[in-house]
C-alpha cells in the first residue's frame, strides 16, 4: 500500500492453474465497488445534507453536513477458503460525491467469492504515509497515535434545550494517554463481510451504508452527551466500533457490459 499502487497478495497464487484450466480458463475481471448511503432504507445523497430531517434511535433529530470514510484491504475468498487480498484503500467522500465508485486496478479470476473489506485502516496500513489522504487533511494528530481518521461524520442535532448543536462523529483508532506515548486499548477498525458474490466481467457490487446504524446497535447513541471531542475518548471510539458492525451490507450486484 506504500505506493498507492495495487499489490495483490495471492495466498493461493495458482488459482487459474487448476486441473481443468486449459479447458476452461478463468476470466480475469476487475469488479467495481459502489458506495450508497441510506437512513434506515431511505437513500441519502449530498443533496440531503444540511437539513435536520433524521431521527436517531435515541430520539434526537439531526442533519448530516459532512461524511467521508476509508475502506481498505478488499478480500475475495472462494469456496475452498482460498483468498485474494487487494491491498488498496479508497476514501469515500459523500460530501463531494467523490470516489463513490471504486475499481481496483488488479484483476481477479471470475467466480463466486465471499467479499469482505476493512472499515478504516488496519494498524499496519495506518502507519503508512498516504499523500492523497494527507492532501485531504484526513490525518490524526501524533499525540492521538497518528495515522488517519477512519471516518469523519459531522452534522447538527437538536439538543435537549431545543437548540441546534454540532456533532463530530469521528472514528479513529481508540487511544488512551494522549501525548508522546499513547496507548491503544482496542483496535477499532473492523472487517465488513458482504457475503457471497458471483464476480463476472463488468460486475458492480453495491456496498450500502445505513448511516442510522452508527447511532443504533448495541449502543443507543445519546448526542446530548457524546457530540464533540470524541477523538480522545477511547470509550466512545469503542462504542463506535460496536455500532459499526451492522452499518454495511451488500446491495445489488449488477453487470455492466462494455460496448
Amino acid at each position: 500500500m506504500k505506493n498507492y499502487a495495487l499489490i495483490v497478495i495471492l495466498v493461493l497464487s495458482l488459482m487459474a492453474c487448476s486441473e481443468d484450466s486449459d479447458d476452461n480458463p478463468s476470466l480475469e475481471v476487475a469488479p467495481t465497488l459502489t458506495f450508497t448511503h441510506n437512513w434506515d432504507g431511505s437513500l441519502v445523497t449530498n443533496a440531503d445534507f444540511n437539513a435536520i430531517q433524521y431521527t436517531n434511535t435515541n430520539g434526537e433529530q439531526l442533519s448530516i453536513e459532512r461524511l467521508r470514510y476509508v475502506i481498505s484491504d478488499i478480500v475475495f475468498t472462494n469456496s475452498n477458503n482460498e483468498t485474494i487480498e487487494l491491498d488498496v484503500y479508497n476514501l469515500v467522500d459523500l460530501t463531494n460525491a467523490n470516489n463513490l465508485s471504486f475499481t481496483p486496478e488488479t484483476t481477479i479470476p471470475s467466480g463466486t467469492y465471499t467479499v469482505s473489506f476493512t472499515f478504516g485502516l488496519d494498524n499496519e496500513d495506518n502507519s503508512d504515509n498516504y499523500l492523497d489522504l494527507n492532501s485531504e487533511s484526513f490525518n490524526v494528530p501524533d499525540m492521538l497515535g497518528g495515522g488517519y481518521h477512519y471516518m469523519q461524520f459531522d452534522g447538527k442535532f437538536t439538543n435537549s434545550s431545543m437548540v441546534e448543536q454540532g456533532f463530530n462523529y469521528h472514528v479513529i483508532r481508540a487511544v488512551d494517554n494522549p501525548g508522546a506515548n499513547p496507548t491503544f486499548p482496542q483496535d477499532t477498525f473492523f472487517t465488513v463481510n458482504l457475503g457471497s458474490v458471483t464476480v463476472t466481467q463488468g460486475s458492480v457490487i453495491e456496498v450500502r451504508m445505513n448511516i442510522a446504524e452508527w447511532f443504533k446497535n448495541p449502543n443507543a447513541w445519546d448526542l446530548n452527551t457524546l457530540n464533540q471531542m470524541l477523538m480522545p475518548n477511547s470509550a466512545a471510539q469503542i462504542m463506535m466500533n460496536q455500532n459499526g458492525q451492522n452499518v454495511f451490507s451488500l446491495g445489488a450486484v449488477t453487470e455492466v457490459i462494455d460496448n
Partner: protein
Amino acid sequence: MTLLCLNCSNDDGGYEPVPKPLDIPQLFLENIIAPVIPNDNPQTVEGVALGKRLFFDKILSSNGTQACASCHSPQNAFTDNTPTSDGVDGIFGSRNSMPLFNLAWNYNERFAWDGKELSLERQALEPVQNPVELHSNWENVVERLQNHPEYSELFRLAFKTNTITKELTTKAIAQFERTLISANSKFDRYSLGQASLTSQELNGLDVFLREDKGDCFHCHGNPNNPLWTDNDFHNNGLDTTFSDLGLGGVTGDPNDNGKFRSPSLRNLAFTAPYMHDGRFTTLDEVINHYSEGLQNSLTIDPLMKQINQGGVQISNQDKADLKAFLLTLSDPSFINNPAFQN
C-alpha cells in the same frame, strides 16, 4: 509543396519556450500529491518572466496607477496590510486581499475567499475589470500591451505569437503565481530535522492539534499537510447574520451562506489583518475569536466547538503558546526571495 512552404514561413523557426517545472519542496514531495498545472499552460522560463513583469506592471489598470502587486505585495506574502483594499479610484472593496503562495496545490482550483474563481487563469481576469480594483477593460489592456515596445516580443517568446490576448496575459500571470512557493519556515525546517522548536512553540502545536483545545487541524491541516489549509469552505462563526454571503453568493445555496475558504496559516507574521473582511488586526484577536467569540448561525460549521460558550475557552497561556507556534509557520525567505521582487 506550396502549402508546405507556407507552413514553414508561419512557424517560429522551431522555437520553443524553455520548460520550467515548479521547484517542488522536499516536504511537499514527501507528503502531498502533485501540484495542479493545466495542460494548456505549462510552466516556461519565458512565461514566468512575462507573468512576473505583468504582475508588477501598472499598465493593467485603467489609469496606470496600480498593478496586481499593489494589493498583493511581496513583503506582505502577496497580500496588503489593510482590512480591504482600495482600487484605482480610491474606492475600497469588501474583502481582504488574499495572500498568494502555494497556489498550485489548491487541488479543487476554487480561488478567492468565496471560491468564485475556478482556476488561477480565470481568477486573473477579474481584478483587471473590477470597478473597485484596476477598473480597466481587457480590450484596452490588450491594446496597450500590443502597442507597448517590448510586450509583443515577450509574448512571442512565451507563447510563440505576437498577437496578445487576455487569455495569454492571464496565462502568464498564472505561471508566475504558481512559482510563489513558500516552504522554508522554522516549522518546515523542524519537520526536516533542521531546527528545534521551543517548549512554548511545541505546546502551541499541541494546542493546535488537540480536539479538546484548539482543534485547529481539522480545517488548517497538520504537520503531514504542509499547506496548512484544507482549501475548503467553512462558516467559522464570525457573524450571526451575513452582510457577505461568501460561497453562498456564488452557489446560490443558502446552506453555503457565510462560508469562506480557509486561508493558509503560513506567513501570518506578514499578512495581518485577518479574516475575509480583515476585521481582526492581530493574531491575538483571531485566537480570542475561536476561544470565546464564536457567533452561532444556521450554517456554522459543526467543527466549531462549544458555540454555546463562544468557543473552546483555552487558557491565556495556551493562547500565547498557540500564537508562538503559529508564528513558526512564517517564512521570511519567501517574502525576501529575489525571484519574487519587482
